[in-house]
């Protein structure tokens, strides 16, 4: 078996999938140079409307057939009512064996995605993450074909490289007009940025916009342009507003998380890169949100303003923007109602295409311009590799999101996690699934100290900067030992040989695989 650059043994082939092992942080040149798109020249006589009566009619008109690929965005998060309605309509039409390729799988219930896998409507899944009922079922061997998991940056790469050709894209929009101009920013179910569906709109064979709020032509603002849209379907409801706004974000009162968050702000403030016009992405986890608030305090104390903040936008980032502490917010998604509205209200809060946010094969991406990136993780190992997908009992816990992209792009990438969660150590010898290569992780911040990564490109600078503070710097090995002294040594989870998930790095190489858990 070949071994990749982070030491993982990989099969040469997994079914029809040919494994390209991860080679290290210098991404390979693309093998073909021409961007692949399934978009077709379409003559449309003047006048009329693209509105079509029902989802079933739109699916039939799109020419969807057995074995094809369909896509969705995840911007309605747990409040999404589109995926379920579309899959039900597809099932009613008897279309089967589809490749389901959303930007991320939201954990929908009634119907659940698992139902559509069991009845053969879906036979392949490619996404950023699978969690909940579907994640558990997949890791226990639900599917014959392995799920391909890609980072936010890897998905547009795969689409434009022709590895993920989308036949029909279903784009949920909180407002649209009869000609297909569509947005997530207005309407009763506004979700904010639609940054994940730009690539679907420009690359899919057919594009169906689904809305519950048809506005007079032209829809302004329009994130998705009519020139990419074939059909518009008006349904009763596209989402549940309170759940759309309650995504990954919550404010923590956990004193340990607050301590870690405060430490991250201290680390950033101690860096020489913390100066006027710096840039950052803190993310939307509970530690991240608290960290943003502490960081804002440090900025006010020192009179420092940031040039821009990037990624998923949250209410508290908008709040510090309103205080004048950040000049520009660039967001591919909006995590709550405040962030969703903010794009309409402020010219310097900008909706961006996920590809420009994170795709390294698009002539460079915005996260390459980050000074500081905060990453949350489930596990870190002594080589600083991060696991953001699987719990150590072998359960699917999350999605890749943009974490691995942010780690690689930013000057200083800071992984934040407690050394134990319950009885589970999170600093370990080998993480269960490698998602982010250790070389791209500058440091790990925990409640028990900060470990700097000697293999990171900015190690010397960080060591000097942190050396001038009283921050507690420890070795990653000592954190691992401390964690194990609390929990005891966990027995290793046993897996079968069956690969259930392939974890693709941002350059399309395989950084790890997840095998079926032996129960």
């Amino acid at each position, binding site marked *: 078996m070949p071994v990749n650059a982070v030491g993982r043994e990989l099969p040469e082939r997994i079914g029809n999938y040919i494994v390209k092992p991860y080679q290290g942080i210098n991404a390979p040149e693309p093998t073909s140079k021409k961007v692949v798109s399934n978009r077709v020249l379409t003559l449309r006589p003047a006048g009329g409307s693209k509105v079509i009566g029902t989802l079933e009619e739109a699916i039939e008109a799109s020419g969807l057939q057995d074995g094809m690929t369909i896509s969705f965005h995840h911007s309605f998060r747990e409040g999404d009512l589109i995926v379920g309605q579309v899959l039900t309509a597809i099932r009613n039409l008897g279309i089967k064996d589809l490749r389901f390729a959303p930007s991320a799988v939201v954990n929908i219930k009634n119907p659940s995605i698992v139902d559509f896998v069991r009845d053969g409507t879906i036979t392949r899944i490619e996404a950023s993450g699978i969690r909940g009922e579907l994640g558990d079922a997949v890791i226990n061997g639900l599917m014959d074909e392995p799920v391909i998991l890609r980072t936010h940056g890897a998905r547009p790469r795969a689409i434009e490289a022709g590895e993920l050709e989308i036949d029909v894209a279903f784009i949920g929009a909180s407002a649209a007009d009869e000609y297909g101009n569509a947005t997530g920013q207005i309407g009763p179910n506004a979700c904010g940025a639609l940054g994940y569906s730009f690539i679907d709109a420009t690359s899919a064979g057919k594009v169906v916009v689904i809305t519950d709020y048809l506005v007079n032509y032209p829809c302004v603002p329009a994130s998705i342009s009519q020139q990419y849209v074939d059909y518009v379907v008006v349904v009763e409801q596209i989402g549940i507003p309170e759940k759309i706004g309650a995504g990954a974000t919550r404010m923590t009162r956990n004193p340990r998380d607050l301590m870690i968050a405060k430490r991250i702000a201290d680390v950033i403030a101690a860096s020489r890169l913390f100066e006027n016009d710096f840039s950052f992405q803190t993310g939307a986890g509970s530690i991240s949100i608290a960290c943003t608030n502490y960081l804002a305090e440090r900025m006010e104390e020192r009179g420092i303003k940031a040039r821009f903040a990037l990624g998923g936008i949250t209410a508290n980032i908008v709040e510090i923007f309103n205080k004048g502490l950040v000049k520009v917010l660039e967001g591919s998604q909006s995590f709550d109602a405040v962030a969703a509205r903010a794009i309409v209200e402020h010219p310097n809060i900008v909706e961006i295409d996920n590809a420009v946010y994170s795709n390294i094969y698009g002539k460079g991406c915005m996260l390459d311009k980050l000074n500081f990136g905060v990453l949350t993780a489930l596990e870190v190992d002594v080589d600083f590799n991060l696991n953001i997908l699987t719990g*150590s*009992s*072998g359960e699917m816990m999350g999605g890749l999101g943009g974490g691995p992209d942010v780690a690689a792009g930013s000057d200083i990438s800071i992984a934040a996690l407690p050394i134990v*969660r*319950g*009885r*589970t150590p999170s600093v370990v010898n080998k993480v269960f699934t490698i998602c982010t290569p250790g070389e791209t992780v500058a440091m790990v911040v925990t409640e028990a100290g900060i470990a700097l990564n000697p293999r990171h490109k900015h190690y010397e600078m960080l060591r000097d900067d942190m050396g001038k503070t009283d921050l507690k710097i420890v070795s990653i090995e000592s954190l691992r030992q401390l964690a194990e002294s*609390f*929990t*005891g040594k*966990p*027995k*290793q*989870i046993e897996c079968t040989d069956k690969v259930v998930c392939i974890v693709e790095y941002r350059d399309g190489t395989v950084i790890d695989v997840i095998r079926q858990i032996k129960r």
Partner: protein
Amino acid sequence: MQLKHPAVAGTLESSDVQVTIHPNNGMGLDIRIESIVKAQFGDAILETVREVLAAFGVTDASVQINDKGALDWVIRARMQAAICRGVERSFDWEGEGV
């Protein structure tokens, strides 16, 4: 030591464990473990439970462990509390706990 009646210690909060013990006169030990970390720590939990029972000389008991990821010290303390309640005595800080 003989258990006089059923006893409970601990909660179902995250990082805690709930121990329920019943007398099992003349029938030996019957230990059942439910744990969110059973795959990694099931054996370690069983060992701790047996150790604490032995320290108190409890040979007949039915023990139900409902673990939400408690550290070993917590499991030990909850076991000790449950046994003390079941035998109606207070904890001897110089005895079993040392």
